[in-house]
């Protein structure tokens, strides 16, 4: 009986997708900027009232840094992602429409996809939901990358250095950023819920539209705006819905809550966001050309965009992102309020560094030791434009990175105690140099990773790095 229901639902999805072809428009709902960032239920209901053909959501980013990809951890909390998924899954199952999730688990590696899959399984079981699901993995094995490298198919992206086989070998995890093609394959196989690993952000929004025959330039530009939820609206929000309506020669975007609006300026400006050049946005297989795009207010809260074009690349490339392990981190957090010490903080830190280096000289320890000085240049470091920053107190973060957690603990602890008791010229406060807000004063930061692959790989087939697996839930 359950199987029968599942088949019925799949047929309904297929019928729906067939019915799209003669359609003049495709309506897409983006619930939030990142799955797990949440959205008001009122906004979501308002979105459903517009009868979307598809709900799609981006679930990740490289912004939180290399740790999450390397360690296989998710930067979004499981409980928050589950809350969002419960609402989304119930809505798409009830309506028989597809749900596409890109860059599962934050980084889109295998453990990240698994985390989100386990949440989906749990919800399906708890709520008695049944649907056909596609899993698209995006991890790329190092041996595969080395093969591409030998064939001369790997080039650095932007300022990244050329890649060597040794560097690939050091990688803890590598993912490829899929374009629309694997998602389209999953949809045409009848999947209602598509859970994808690392994904070009606009792809989950554009794939169903391109599959239904809409213009890829408009579909991808629409996706580029929608992947951030209501961030492109005024006032902007990373935890609210954006509704998009794609026609044959233009699209419209509008926040679902009446409390926000899209303006020509907010939508045009959004295409700048996190990109190096706002007029040519490169992605898998080509770029979106915005040179002829127009942005026009349409009604009170919607903006109509036309003229965006997709320029296919001569060779299809996929972006690879990889990280390598760099050790373990321990940090100590402290403050200093003494003006006599603050005046000579650089000299004091120099003396502490010297003591730490000298103390571990024969211990065979390879370590990195750093002091962030908040109130001086803790935020901008080398880019800080102000030569002298007058401040009445300093926040100090002592950081040690070493080959093992114990070694990082030892270096951090020694640097902390040395800094606490080192004398300096004119010192009056001889009881201690640092104010610690916490006991314990030191914290283990765990594994440390560094980005080491940010390269394009030329593929023969947009699907060749990505496997699509169908599951019946």
């Amino acid at each position: 009986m359950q199987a029968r229901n599942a088949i019925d639902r799949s047929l309904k999805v297929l019928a729906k997708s067939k019915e799209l072809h003669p359609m003049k428009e495709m309506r897409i709902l983006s619930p939030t900027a990142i799955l797990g960032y949440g959205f008001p239920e009122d906004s979501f209901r308002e979105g459903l009232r517009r009868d979307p053909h598809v709900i799609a959501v981006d679930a990740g980013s490289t912004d939180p840094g290399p740790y999450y990809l390397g360690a296989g951890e998710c930067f979004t909390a499981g409980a928050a992602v589950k809350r969002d998924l419960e609402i989304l899954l119930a809505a798409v199952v009830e309506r028989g429409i597809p749900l596409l999730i890109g860059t599962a688990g934050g980084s889109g590696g295998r453990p990240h996809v698994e985390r989100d899959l386990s949440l989906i399984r749990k919800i399906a079981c708890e709520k008695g939901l049944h649907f056909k699901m596609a899993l698209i993995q995006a991890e790329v094995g190092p041996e595969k990358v080395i093969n591409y490298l030998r064939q001369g198919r790997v080039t650095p992206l932007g300022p990244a250095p050329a890649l060597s086989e040794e560097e690939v070998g050091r990688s803890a995890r590598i993912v490829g950023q899929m374009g629309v093609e694997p998602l389209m394959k999953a949809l045409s196989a009848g999947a209602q819920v598509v859970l994808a690993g690392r994904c070009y952000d606009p792809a989950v929004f554009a794939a169903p539209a391109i599959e239904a025959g809409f213009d890829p330039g408009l579909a991808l530009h629409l996706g580029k705006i929608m992947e951030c939820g209501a961030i492109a609206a005024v006032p902007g929000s990373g935890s609210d819905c954006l509704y998009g309506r794609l026609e044959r020669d233009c699209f419209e975007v509008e926040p679902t809550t009446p409390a926000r609006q899209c303006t020509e300026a907010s939508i045009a400006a959004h295409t700048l966001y996190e990109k190096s050049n706002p007029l040519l946005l490169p992605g898998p297989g080509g770029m979106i050309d915005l040179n002829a795009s127009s942005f026009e207010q349409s009604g009170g809260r919607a903006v109509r965009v036309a003229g965006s074009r997709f320029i296919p690349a001569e060779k299809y490339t996929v972006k690879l992102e990889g990280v390598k392990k760099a050790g373990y981190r321990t940090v100590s957090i402290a403050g200093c309020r003494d003006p006599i010490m603050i005046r000579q903080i650089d000299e004091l830190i120099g003396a502490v560094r010297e003591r730490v280096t000298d103390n571990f000289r024969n211990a065979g320890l390879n370590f990195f030791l750093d002091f962030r000085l908040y109130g001086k240049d803790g935020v901008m470091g080398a880019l800080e434009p102000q030569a002298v920053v007058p401040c009445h107190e300093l926040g100090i973060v002592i950081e040690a990175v070493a080959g093992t957690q114990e070694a990082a603990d030892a270096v951090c602890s020694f640097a902390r105690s040395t800094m606490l008791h080192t004398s300096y010229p004119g010192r009056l406060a001889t009881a201690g140099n640092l104010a610690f807000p916490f006991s314990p004063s030191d914290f283990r930061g765990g594994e440390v990773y560094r980005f080491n692959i940010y390269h394009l790989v030329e593929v023969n087939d947009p699907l060749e790095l990505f496997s699509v697996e169908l599951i019946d839930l």
Partner: protein
Amino acid sequence: METIKITDMVSVIRSKNSGPYELTFDVIFKSRADYERARRSGALKKERIAELYHLGKDEVLGTVWFAAALAFKATIVRPLISGDPGETDVYGAQQHVPFLSLTIPVADQT
């Protein structure tokens, strides 16, 4: 020469990672007149951005004017790859401050 503070002409000045290897700055002007004045003044040339951030000229990867958004954009090589040892701002969202001190000449442009 008479100048006007850039902070009086803009609605947005922000920085953000553009991938882990680049840092990108957006300046969005309040009006077409402000946008045109800043663009024609030459005050946001590549050399000036390099100077603001103590960089070599080749570390400023590009500057671009985007009329549809009344925006100027500059992209530089990140001082560190995002998250590398010594990192101070993993997302790159607080590196915009030197832009706040810019002034734009209000020369007679007729």
